[in-house]
């Protein structure tokens, strides 16, 4: 272990803003991307499902 305390760790020898700004935004964007692809999947599923439903309904009518 190279750090004396948690305060030391977060301060990063005075570079805290730069180091945590890099790691934080990277983690944030990756987490957001996971949410985006999950939303896109749900959207794709409901689009396909509603189109299929529309097809079967029109078959029932004709």
């Amino acid at each position, binding site marked *: 272990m*190279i750090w004396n305390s948690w305060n030391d760790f977060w301060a*990063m020898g005075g570079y805290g803003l730069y180091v945590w700004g*890099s790691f934080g*935004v*990277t983690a944030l964007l990756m987490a957001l991307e996971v949410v985006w692809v999950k939303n896109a*999947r749900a959207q794709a599923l409901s689009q396909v499902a509603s189109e299929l439903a529309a097809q079967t309904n029109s078959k029932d009518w004709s």
Partner: protein
Amino acid sequence: MFGLLATGLSVWGLWLGMFVAPTDFQQGEGYRIIFVHVPVSWMSMVIYLAMAFWALLGLTFNTRLSGMMTKALAPTGAIFAFLSLWTGALWGKPMWGAWWVWDARLTSELILFFLYLGHIALTSAIDDPRRADKAGGILALVGALNVPVIYFSVKWWNTLHQGASVSLTKGSSMAQVMLEAMLIMGIAFWMYAVAIALYRVRSIILVRERHTQWVAELPEVKAHMMKNSVGGAIA
């Protein structure tokens, strides 16, 4: 599967990078940005090459999956290219005294970011998927010329950006544990990119193949239809 690998390797890489690797004698603790900056930069180039590979396959053999893979990779590549510039700016400020300089390495990486954005804009502006794939494929292939320019920019021009710390021919100029942490983070981000692109391509396939029998018979689609019809009945 790839997602689990990415998570596990990230934890290991971050542990080595943040708790085990020693302080750099020149840059103090600020150098630790390397453990995200270098992996995201590598991935921004690797993903573009992967897109160019799929584009080449699609344009020569007219394979159906190629265009979808190219499209699925682009947003992830754009995010990595942005992160490369972002972490680079946060590293440049304390070390060089500037967030940004018009250096060959930085400029070519910025062009890469714009190529990704251009690819996304171009393919989503064309309604016909086959024509969109073709246009996107050509852009991906032509833009791939920029990748070696980024990689060799620090050699070809006199740049403020430092040269490569890791080279295939000369080995590494870094401490062993720093190098290990960086490589592990690189593999972790690679696995992340694979996981997310495959997840995204599944949605694209679903929409494009919506008129086929197998999509109609997919359990997830059936579950969604049930949910819709129940919701409709209540309304």
